[in-house]
């Protein structure tokens, strides 16, 4: 809401500058969003006296003056006819910046036709005070010198406030004035409202059919008004907060709404069938054309102000096109009503119509203000549009709401705020906020909140009032204290951080994606069908309405985007929530880890090392490292039972933890990469975070003593069928349980052209033998090796070399 400083000072004396006032307001919870000074006088213009005037040697119309602002004497060249010695005039000193339509111009030391000039004396027009450009502006002779003109002509300041929803009472000048008076400790005063007595009763003028939605309606009739332009003061007030003047009666209703916060509506009574109003629900099929030309098909849920026949206004929101005050209006029915805030809110929202009136109604207006505002508007209409009152207040009202009564314990207030604010100060603050404070004892008082402060119902609410008026800066800094968390509480965040650290440590960049995705992105993870997806009712766009079931879809989007931008070497991961509707597959929310790599394995290296592309064993190594770092031992990699469309067939493995599927890794199915401008294969691993963490926490590490006796190694090489897997060889060697066998390591696989033709490959292993009690002899190791070689040749069908 916008307020004008000048207008505000009609109700409360402001002995402070704008910055101070605005700081006070902000720090009291009425946040100043914008300050707009509309003074046209720039800083740097001061009053000065002309000491002497000489003709300019090089010009007929210029004069050379000596001028003082009380502190220094300056020479000014002036073209004005009235720059006579002894006059007190405005002087723009060097450095002053004038903002004009042509742009800014700055006063500089300059030479005019060869004579130095150190400033500029100004006319009223140059200062924007009036259109007078005949000569210099002249001040009375007793004017002090060196006074800033911005002080003499302060202009007005428009202040934009953010009013929080709990403070509808501040949606008016008077409401803000009340808080300001408390903040500045100066009294606030409403103008005196005097309206001629009128006893005329107009039977049936106001009917309320739905008192729940319209708890109070006051109608007054003013006749013989003369519609015309508003007087300057009224126009100026409205314009100072950005409203346009329409005509005198409408301007008064707007003025009073801004002044007191009570929306008003003036009907042209002649347009009302029966000359009366009914607050009722709309009837099926009724329509209304609003003031802004919008046609609304009404439904029974809408509350309207109707005449004897048809709706004339959308209650609390906007008047109808045909019932407003026009130039020909002579008799006005002035509405001042209270409507239920939640009704206005939902109606305004569902119809998409929001006005200054609906804004105030939906936040709640003061039940008591309806009468005051009605009288104030009558007073002003009679003043600016003539006419006379033709009815008393014709009112239909439900019972006045009860004012909340709050027991306020001083100690409790202090306890909540954490300051030592005294009992007296608490009482003082509450009273200055126009609350009723009674039964003041040493411990407590009883506070009754007026109906304009419906936000105050409990002690905590009073604590807030005391805190904000006394000043939140008074709250002291104290050592951080208190009991820490319960001993059995688990930190939910730490294990996720550990996982992220591990993956980042392996050189992967972390990504974060939106979790609301399109169906194509969601379903590119072939583990899921459409029926597994959790769908939003109100997505931002119809194509973007699913919770992602896995992290793959969005990650592939990121890969494609990066490749398109020339970033082809990618090591990316994400750890975040995925969502599934099908409990047979996954819980509704779970954490997933997705690690992806493509492009060069080590682009940071040079020569051949730098050019090598990632392959399957890189992603496998990442998974192995991760498992080792998490101390997961009970895992197995197995071939998928059936092909998984996410992966290239035969190039993927399933991760089993404790026998259960916990993830899968391998090469991305090429169909996903069709549109990418990169031929490098993509590898990724997807893992269930809870399975990983469960497996990790079960393991206890224990230390093994180091072997004291030396090991002996023997190499073995053979030509094997192409189909013989390394894993089979290893398993076989282990199963042989050769005496003193310790470990086996693959050191070469070779497929030459000849071997390839025969569908064979050469494999070479290094075996280590060790006894923990003694040094082994060659003889016993050789014997073990011979046996093993024989078994290998016989059972694995390999040709030993």
């Amino acid at each position, binding site marked *: 809401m916008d307020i004008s400083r000048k207008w505000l000072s009609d109700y409360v004396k402001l002995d402070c500058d704008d910055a101070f006032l605005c700081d006070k307001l902000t720090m009291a919870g009425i946040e100043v969003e914008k300050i707009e000074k509309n003074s046209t006088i720039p800083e740097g213009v001061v009053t000065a006296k002309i000491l002497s005037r000489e003709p300019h040697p090089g010009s007929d119309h210029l004069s050379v003056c000596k001028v003082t602002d009380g502190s220094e004497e300056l020479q000014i060249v002036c073209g004005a006819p009235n720059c006579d010695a002894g006059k007190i005039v405005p002087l723009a000193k060097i450095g002053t910046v004038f903002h004009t339509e042509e742009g800014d111009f700055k006063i500089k030391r300059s030479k005019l036709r060869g004579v130095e000039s150190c400033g500029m004396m100004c006319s009223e027009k140059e200062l924007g005070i009036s259109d007078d450009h005949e000569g210099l502006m002249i001040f009375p002779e007793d004017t002090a010198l060196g006074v800033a003109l911005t002080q003499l002509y302060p202009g007005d300041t428009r202040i934009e406030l953010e009013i929080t929803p709990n403070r509808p009472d501040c949606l008016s000048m008077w409401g803000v004035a009340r808080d300001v008076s408390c903040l500045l400790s100066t009294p606030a005063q409403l103008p005196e409202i005097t309206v001629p007595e009128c006893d005329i009763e107009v039977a049936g003028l106001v009917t309320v059919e739905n008192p729940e939605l319209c708890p109070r309606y006051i109608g007054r009739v003013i006749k013989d008004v003369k519609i015309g332009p508003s007087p300057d003061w009224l126009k100026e007030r409205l314009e100072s907060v950005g409203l346009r003047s329409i005509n005198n009666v409408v301007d008064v209703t707007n003025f009073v709404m801004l002044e007191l916060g009570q929306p008003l509506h003036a009907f042209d009574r002649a347009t009302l069938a029966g000359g009366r109003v009914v607050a009722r629900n709309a009837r099926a099929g009724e329509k209304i054309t609003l003031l802004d030309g919008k046609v609304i098909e009404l439904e029974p849920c809408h509350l309207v102000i109707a005449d004897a026949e048809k709706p004339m206004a959308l209650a609390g929101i906007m008047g109808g096109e045909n019932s407003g005050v026009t130039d020909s209006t002579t008799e006005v029915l002035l509405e001042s009503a209270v409507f239920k805030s939640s009704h206005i809110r*939902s109606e305004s929202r569902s119809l998409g119509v929001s006005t200054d009136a609906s804004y105030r109604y939906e936040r709640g207006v003061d039940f008591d203000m309806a009468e005051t505002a009605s009288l104030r508007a009558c007073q002003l209409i009679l003043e600016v549009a003539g006419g006379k009152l033709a009815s008393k207040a014709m009112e239909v009202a439900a019972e006045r709401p009860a004012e909340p009564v709050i027991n306020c314990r001083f100690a409790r207030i202090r*306890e909540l705020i*954490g300051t030592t604010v005294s009992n007296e100060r608490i009482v003082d603050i509450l009273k200055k906020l126009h609350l009723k404070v009674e039964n003041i004892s040493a411990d407590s008082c009883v506070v009754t909140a007026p109906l304009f402060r419906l936000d105050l119902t409990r002690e905590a609410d009073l604590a807030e009032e005391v*805190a904000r008026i006394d000043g939140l800066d008074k*709250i002291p800094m*104290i050592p951080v204290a208190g009991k820490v968390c319960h001993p059995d509480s688990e930190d939910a965040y730490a294990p996720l951080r550990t996982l992220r650290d591990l993956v980042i440590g392996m050189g992967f960049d972390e990504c974060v*994606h939106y979790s609301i995705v399109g169906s194509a992105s969601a379903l590119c993870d072939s583990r899921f069908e459409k029926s597994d997806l959790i769908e939003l009712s109100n997505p931002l766009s119809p194509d973007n309405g699913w919770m992602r079931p896995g992290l793959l879809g969005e990650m592939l989007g990121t890969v494609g985007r990066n490749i398109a931008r020339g970033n082809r070497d990618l090591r*990316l991961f994400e750890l975040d929530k995925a969502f599934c509707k099908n409990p047979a597959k996954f819980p509704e929310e779970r954490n997933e880890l997705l690690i992806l790599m493509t492009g060069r394995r080590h682009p*940071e290296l040079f020569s051949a090392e730098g050019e090598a592309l990632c392959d399957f064993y890189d992603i496998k190594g990442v998974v192995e490292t991760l498992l080792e770092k998490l101390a997961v031992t009970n895992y197995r990699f197995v071939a998928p039972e059936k092909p998984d469309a996410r992966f290239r067939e035969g190039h993927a493995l399933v991760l089993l933890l404790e026998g259960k599927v916990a993830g899968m890794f391998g090469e991305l199915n090429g169909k996903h990469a069709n549109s990418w401008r990169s031929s490098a294969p993509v590898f990724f691993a997807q893992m269930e975070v809870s399975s990983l963490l469960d497996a990790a926490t079960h393991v206890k590490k224990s230390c093994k003593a180091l072997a004291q006796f030396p090991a002996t190694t023997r190499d073995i090489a053979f030509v094997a069928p192409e189909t013989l897997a390394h894993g089979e060889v290893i398993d076989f060697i282990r199963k042989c349980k050769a005496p003193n066998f310790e470990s086996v390591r693959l050191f070469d696989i070779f497929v030459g052209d000849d071997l390839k033709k025969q569908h064979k490959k050469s494999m070479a292993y290094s075996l280590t033998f060790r006894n923990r009690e003694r040094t082994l002899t060659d003889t016993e190791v050789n014997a073990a090796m011979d046996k093993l070689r024989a078994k290998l040749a016989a059972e694995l069908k390999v040709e030993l070399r």
Partner: protein
Amino acid sequence: MVTFFTTFKQFFVFLPERFDLKAGFQRKNSMNEIIEAVNRAAENAEAKAAVAADAGALEALRIEYLGRNGLFPELSKKMGTVPPEERKATGTAFNTGRTRIQAALDAAAARLGGAGKQDKDAIDLTLPGRRTAPGHRHPITQLADECVSVFRRMGFVAVDGPEIEDIYHNFDALNTPDDHPSRDPKDTFYFPDGRILRSQTSPVQIRVMETHEPPVRIVAPGRVFRRDTPDATHGMNFHQIEGLSIDKGVSMADLKSVLQTFAWEMFGKDVKIRLRPHFFPFTEPSVEYDFSCVVCGGKGCNVCKNSGYIEIAGAGMVDPNVLKNVGYDPEIWSGYAFGLGLERLAMLRYRIPDLRFLYDNDVRFLEQF
């Protein structure tokens, strides 16, 4: 050679204790055999080096005088025969001679346009190091990690809550009026079963209090959802971190102190904080929590819209109605809660101009963190 000279020098360092100063001076001008040989060798070597035609000739010279079987090692063997009072002078002459020869060789090498000694294994020291490129934490996670660490030091434990949430935990239990605009499907994502995507991390407060007896002290980092079309400052979702502390006798002074500590830890000791009264349905009194602008230091700039302050978080004392909703007696227990946006913090910390950068995941962006 180096080893030799080290010991040689050490030898002379200890010498002066037994050195007859007077005798030394008396013999100043007299030269013994070794000194003469050294000086002669130096002169000869200088002359030969000056006319050496190639690197091979230089290497031969080096071997002749300084090599393992050269003149100087030979002379050093005779050092033992020098009378003690002459040893210092002899040693000095020996070193000077050797330095002169080396200098002559270096000068000749420079003249010949190459090092006196060619290193066959020379490497280009400017080539890039062989390393594993490090990975990078996403700025949002970075901020979440830091926030959690700071609050953990103040006794808060990190907890998690569901992102698909019910109306009760997200709104009702948090004292949000039935017709509050945030419940509107224009602002909050709904599911057909009436549940929603949580619009704030505050429902985690309720879930914790429902299942734990006070005192509690938690932080909950996580994703929250608002129905905003993505632009430079909005997204369909963003991240918050929620804090809650309930105990006996907790006041706004505790809240202020915790938030000030947080500000100092995150942005340094120069940061001032300001609490400003505000309104939230789930706290009373409610405040907004501003940092002095981390860009201009409070002088006023376009980031803080010339106010000198930047709004960081909403906070306040937990509303008595919220406490009642979870079965805590507001007469016994009090506490504070706060919530702040991680994207906003990240954008401030790293001067990220557009929120969409955070969700675009271009590696050139990610690798900056």
